[in-house]
């Protein structure tokens, strides 16, 4: 895993008949990548394009079937992994079966819809009958007092009442021929309907409506509220107009008999028809359910089969068929260490198809660049993914992933640095690891990312607990595992300057480490002293500590990257690069930033008086500018001479990097030209790259390295910045939320505390863990991708993508 695996290009010859089984075996193995032997052919020009299309059509039908099955709430049986592959004949059978199923289902659905519509109409008629009965009864009861003989004039009294206020002559002229129209309309259309009728006929009609209360009707018809209405009018023309209006409003009109007896008959009729239809509908649904259940038992198997066939045909499209139509030629990339397993798989495949002629493997030499293959397991897969996201490594280049397994969570933890939050992160990761099976069934992209990164999160959490213990920060509080090294008592008289009066006079007082006893002489054993948590100048100390820590970690990380580049050069036997690139780069870095590290450690280990202690930053700046004053304080004797030597040495490395390599290439080319001129066939080396380009490239590389040293070192200061932000946020949450509430009056305060704590927990999770976690993740990733990897990584390869049925 430290380097990509060695790959070889192999030619395969196998018979056309055994092609399916052989490719199936190779797909199950998951270790070969087929090269495209027909790169010029477009998709529709390939040999097996028809078969691929057939497979796609089958996939469409299967998707439709699956949708139908889920719509009817039938449970689908889980997928059973079948190792075998179906031959083309089986595929045709499957295709017929699936097509027949689709036809059947379409027919069933169509019939069902028609029956449903009829059913709804019948229900409407039934409700209409009921409602109109009420109307007619109401009219008849009024009629009974006016004793009009004609039954058609049932509504005259009703009409006379509504028209009575106006000077209408109708009511006084004896019984008229009144006809009526009955129907059902949607309730929200009714007011508009009534208005239109009114505008047209100006009260020459009577409209009665009532809401249909039939519960069954409503559930059947998707809860649309409907009104039944009856319109009483006179004249035939008017009837025609009203019928047209009803059509416009999509009201359903039904013939409604006007005498009670006929209505009763009709009602019986409708009732029987409803019962019949109900039974038919039920039967149809049962039939559909039976058909779908039978399909549901095997649908997963079918889906996998079709997918496999499609993959196999797609792969066959990449191969060549020779002239006799009996042999298939394929070219594959495969790891050298797996050649045996590939051969075994092919033999098994050809045995399965019944042909004893085993396929032939022929390893060929090639100048092409093979794909990069890094063998990963469940644990290392996540880290390899984040390295590959920047760029896949070149063939046989050093793979940064094994180092990233530890350095990435470590740098994350330096920025995240809190025991309590780290513990929560670890518990979350353990939960995701335990629930991995169930979570991977959720099929959500966010959950997939979470499950893929579960080991990364686990390591991040564990390292965060460690760095939290060293920073002595747990939900912004400090532990006091051993005794603090700072004593207050010695600041008071007789050993120190303070007295009780000083305490009353000043709000804040500094402890002085010069006074004996105040600082115990040995630092706190594990991490940052807990006294700093209660000090008001905590940040002065922590900032200086964390900035120096970031620089130390950054320079170490970069030196590690440079060491990896040395390993790369050695592997590729590129000794010229070792001398001309690695050594000058290393010297440059060490003489400047290695010296900075030395200064930091030196100043820490030497006892200084605070008034005379020089600032490291100023020393460094003055060193670069060669500006030394006479009253400068030096940390050690000989400092000036050493510093000047180091800077000069670093500056000397610049022309070494810039000029020597291009000059060597130039001399080499001149030699070649001389040899070619004297007739020596050293090969017609055409100058691919001009000398100007080489110089420019080298200059860019030199500038990039030198300026990059400074900028990358400064970039590592984000370790300080993010850990400061995290610590401050967590302290703000504590101070603003919990500290005040904990000091509240007991009783009501306990209720307030419960509320405020839930707020605190929510904010801790959302802001401090999720937001800060993502931010630290991103910055740690950037530090790896840019500052670490640009010391040695090329990352211009392409990934090995084998044909693998497990990923289907």
């Amino acid at each position, binding site marked *: 895993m430290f380097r990509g695996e060695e790959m070889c290009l192999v030619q395969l010859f196998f018979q056309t008949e055994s092609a399916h089984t052989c490719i199936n075996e190779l797909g199950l193995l998951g270790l070969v990548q087929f090269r495209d032997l027909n790169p010029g052919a477009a998709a529709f020009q390939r040999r097996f394009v028809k078969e691929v299309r057939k497979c796609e059509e089958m996939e469409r039908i299967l998707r439709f079937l699956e949708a139908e099955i889920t719509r009817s709430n039938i449970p689908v049986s889980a997928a059973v992994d079948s190792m075998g592959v179906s031959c083309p004949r089986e595929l045709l059978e499957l295709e017929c079966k699936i097509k027949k199923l689709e036809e059947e289902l379409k027919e069933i659905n169509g019939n069902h819809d028609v029956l449903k519509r009829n059913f709804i109409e019948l229900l409407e008629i039934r409700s209409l009958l009921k409602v109109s009965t009420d109307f007619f009864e109401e009219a008849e009861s009024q009629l009974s007092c006016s004793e009009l003989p004609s039954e058609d004039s049932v509504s005259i009294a009703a009409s006379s009442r509504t028209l009575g206020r106006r000077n209408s002559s109708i009511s006084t002229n004896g019984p008229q021929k009144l006809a009526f129209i009955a129907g059902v309309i949607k309730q929200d259309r009714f007011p508009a309907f009534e208005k239109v009728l009114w505008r047209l006929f100006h009260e020459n009609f009577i409209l009665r409506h009532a809401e249909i209360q039939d519960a069954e009707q409503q559930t059947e018809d998707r809860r649309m509220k409907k009104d039944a209405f009856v319109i009483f009018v006179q004249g035939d023309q008017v009837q025609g107009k009203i019928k047209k209006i009803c059509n416009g409003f999509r009201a359903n009109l039904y013939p409604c008999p006007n005498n009670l007896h006929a209505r009763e008959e009709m009602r019986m009729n409708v009732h029987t028809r409803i019962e019949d239809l109900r039974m038919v509908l039920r039967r149809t649904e049962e039939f559909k359910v039976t058909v779908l259940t039978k399909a549901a038992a095997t649908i997963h198997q079918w889906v996998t089969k079709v997918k496999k066939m499609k993959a196999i045909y797609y792969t066959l499209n990449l191969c060549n068929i020779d002239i006799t139509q009996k042999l298939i030629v394929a070219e594959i990339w495969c790891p050298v260490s797996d050649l045996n397993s590939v051969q075994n798989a092919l033999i098994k495949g050809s045995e399965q198809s019944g042909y004893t002629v085993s396929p032939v493997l022929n390893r060929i030499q090639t100048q092409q660049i093979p794909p990069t293959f890094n063998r990963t397991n469940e644990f290392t897969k996540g880290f390899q993914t984040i390295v590959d996201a920047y760029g896949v490594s070149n063939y046989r280049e050093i793979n940064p992933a094994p180092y990233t397994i530890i350095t990435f969570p470590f740098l994350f933890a330096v920025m995240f640095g809190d025991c309590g939050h780290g513990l929560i992160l670890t518990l979350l990761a353990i939960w995701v690891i335990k629930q991995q099976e169930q979570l991977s069934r959720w099929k959500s992209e966010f959950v997939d990312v979470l499950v893929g990164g579960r080991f990364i999160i686990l390591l991040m959490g564990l390292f965060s607990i460690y760095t939290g213990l060293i920073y002595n920060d747990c939900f912004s509080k400090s532990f006091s595992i051993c005794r603090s090294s700072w004593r207050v008592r010695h600041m008071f008289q007789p050993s120190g300057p303070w007295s009780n009066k000083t305490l009353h006079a000043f709000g*804040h007082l*500094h402890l002085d480490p010069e006074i004996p006893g105040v600082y115990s002489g*040995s630092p*706190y054993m594990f991490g940052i002293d807990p006294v700093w948590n209660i000090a008001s100048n905590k940040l002065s100390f922590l900032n*200086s500590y964390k900035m120096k820590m970031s620089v130390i970690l950054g320079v170490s990380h970069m030196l590690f990257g440079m060491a990896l580049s040395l390993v790369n050069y050695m592997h590729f036997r590129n000794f010229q690069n070792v001398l001309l690139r690695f050594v000058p780069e290393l010297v440059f870095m060490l003489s400047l930033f290695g010296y900075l590290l030395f200064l930091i450690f030196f100043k820490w280990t030497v006892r200084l008086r605070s008034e005379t202690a020089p600032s490291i930053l100023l020393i460094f700046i003055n060193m670069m500018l060669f500006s030394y004053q006479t009253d400068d304080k030096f940390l050690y004797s000989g400092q000036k001479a050493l510093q000047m030597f180091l800077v000069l040495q670093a500056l000397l490395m610049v022309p070494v990097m810039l000029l020597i390599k291009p000059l060597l290439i130039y001399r080499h080319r001149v030699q070649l030209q001389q040899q070619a001129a004297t007739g020596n066939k050293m090969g017609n080396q055409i100058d691919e790259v001009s000398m100007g380009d080489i110089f420019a490239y080298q200059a860019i590389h030199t500038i990039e390295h030198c300026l990059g040293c400074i900028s990358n070192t400064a970039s590592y200061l984000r370790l300080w910045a993010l850990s400061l932000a995290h610590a401050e946020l967590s302290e703000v949450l504590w101070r603003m939320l919990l500290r005040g509430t904990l000091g509240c009056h007991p009783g009501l305060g306990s209720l307030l505390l419960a509320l405020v704590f839930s707020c605190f927990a929510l904010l801790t999770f959302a802001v401090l863990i999720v937001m800060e976690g993502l931010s630290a993740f991103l910055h740690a990733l950037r530090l790896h991708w840019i500052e670490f990897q640009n010391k040695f990584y090329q990352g211009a390869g392409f990934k090995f993508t084998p044909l693998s049925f497990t990923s289907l």
Partner: protein
Amino acid sequence: MAEHNFAIPMAVITLFWLFVGGVVPLFVPKGPNRGVIVTMLVLTAVSCYLFWLIAILAQLNPLFGPALSNDTIWYLQYHWP
């Protein structure tokens, strides 16, 4: 006695991380993952040791002390020995 005892934690922790990074890798069973596990152990030991070392060296010779509020000083005077 406990005051000037810087050597004990230094020795203990150095030895511990030396053990984790130097001795435990010798006992990792041979298998396809041996290289990765050894790398992980060594890198963990180096980075954690370095981190602890930086923390303790930074506090070895302090140039200034903490600034405490007078309430805190009054409390610490009586409660911290």
